């Protein structure tokens, strides 16, 4: 087989100007189970499929709170995600302590972007093997960002990463126009529907394997009279029985899928159940 000489480290360009190690790291993201994020004018939600290593084992954690106004969803190497998440937590805490405000989500994401980029330019380092969806609110509103191992960070209206996430993205693209004005519940519903698209056949969303994270603004608190400031609904993760009522929203099966999700995708190459991926 042709031996690729240019893929041994992240400091070597291929003749085409590519860096294979970074591209391989991006593959690790696709090994993780799918996560979906959507942002509206008032909220940002993350939904995720949790895997369990075997029937009787517990389910992996996919959503993490960073600070009261930010949460992340991960796909890829959990341990790399933990490093990033701890870093983000520190940054948010420091920012709140010095400025007494929510750290702007974009600055936060830029920081991990820069951190990840360094790993792609120095010998002896490797790129992070994890992709993130970062959802948060700050003084300028709700935001959703995607973070890639290359250090690329982009603000999205909605996005999905992880195994078979293309199907979810297709769903999101089809419903793109609706998100901006969606309510909190509608946003979660869209998220779950997108998630459903990515499921392998015969798999269902259950209270065991579904996680939902929400952050946003609460409708005007009238306590302070002419209180103009929007109040933040802190990032919160719902698991287990707490997701039941949301699952019921999308339990209506295919028949009610009025947008016509098109032909059900055939089973695609499996989700690559590697132990180290998305597992503790």
């Amino acid at each position, binding site marked *: 087989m042709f031996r690729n000489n240019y893929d041994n480290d992240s400091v070597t360009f291929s003749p085409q100007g590519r*860096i294979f190690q970074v591209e391989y790291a991006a593959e690790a993201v696709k090994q993780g189970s799918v996560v979906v994020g959507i942002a509206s004018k008032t909220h940002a939600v993350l939904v995720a499929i949790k895997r369990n290593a075997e029937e009787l084992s517990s389910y992996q954690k996919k959503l993490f709170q960073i600070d009261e106004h930010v949460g992340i969803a991960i796909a890829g190497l959990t341990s790399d995600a933990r490093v990033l998440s701890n870093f983000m937590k520190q940054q948010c805490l420091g920012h709140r302590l010095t400025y007494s405000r929510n750290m702007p989500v974009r600055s936060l994401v830029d920081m991990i972007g820069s951190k990840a980029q360094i790993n792609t330019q120095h010998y002896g380092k490797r790129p992070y093997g994890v992709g993130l969806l970062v959802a948060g609110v700050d003084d300028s509103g709700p935001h959703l960002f995607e973070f890639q191992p290359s*250090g690329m960070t982009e603000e*999205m*209206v909605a*996005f999905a990463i992880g195994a078979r996430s293309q199907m979810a993205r297709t769903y999101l693209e089809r419903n793109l126009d609706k998100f901006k004005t969606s309510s909190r519940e509608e946003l979660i519903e869209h998220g779950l529907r997108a998630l459903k698209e990515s499921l392998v056949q015969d798999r269902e969303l259950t209270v065991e394997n579904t996680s939902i994270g929400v952050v946003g603004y609460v409708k005007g608190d009238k306590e302070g009279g002419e209180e103009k400031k929007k109040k933040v609904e802190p990032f919160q993760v719902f698991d287990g029985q707490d997701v039941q009522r949301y699952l019921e929203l999308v339990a209506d099966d295919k028949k009610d899928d009025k947008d016509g999700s098109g032909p059900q995708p055939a089973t695609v190459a499996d989700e690559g159940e590697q132990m180290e991926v998305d597992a503790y």
Partner: protein
Amino acid sequence: MTSIGTGYDLSNSIFSPDGRNFQVEYAMKAVENGGTSIGIRCKDGVVLAVEKIITSKLLKPGANKRIATVDRHLGVVSSGMLPDGRHFVDRARDEARSWRDNFKTPITTADLASRMGNYLQAHTLYQSVRPFGITAIVGGFDAQEESPVDGEVGNGPSCGAGGKNPDKKYGGPFLYMIEPSGLYWGYYGAATGKGRQAAKAELEKLDLTGEGITLEEAVKEAARIIYVAHDDSKDKEFELEMSWISGKDGPTKGLHQEVPKALREEAERLAKKSLDDSDDEEEEKKDGDKMEE
């Protein structure tokens, strides 16, 4: 390619027998795959523009800026690997800040270009790093008037930092382009990325060195050039992002700012119109005077 298989292209800072550093050349390949960026230096300011290929419909429109502010009067745009571009900007901001710390005055465009040229060059010297996969265009407007140093105290001569010749003109618009090798030149019109050939051809048609064009004209030209350089057969849709810098008495008051929405839309409208017109012409002529690639 001749370089492949020779073994001289497998790591940075290695010369081939004919004196080339292949890794730097490969880095330039990464640049050539990126969206087109251009910069125009006109008589009263600088315009930067970039073609942002929309890689996904799910991207939030207008949210992901590619032109960055480095100091109040300095802007940077780059083509190539986006994360490397961010690194470049971070470093440039550090340089601008430390210059302010040391000299109590904003860094000039030339000095920033020099510092950043050195930084990129340093990344071609060692096997432990790789060159930057970007070519960056740095635009700035160096202040022409004296600025107070440190909120001057006292009734001393109001001559600012001093050391300036009253007859000489200082400051003005400047434009530089820095390549992965660390090489940089000053430009009147600079272009890099995918559509650089077409963009360069268009830039050369403008009168930038003589009488010069106005900032507003430059904005419109920049938009048109990005539209011309865009290859709709290969690429999907794109978003145009533009920024400008004028002097103290110009529209941006010496600051690097995004081109206002209204002006950008007007420039885009004119760009599209001129494209349509030239398409019509081409159909008439039939023989088509295509840009040599």
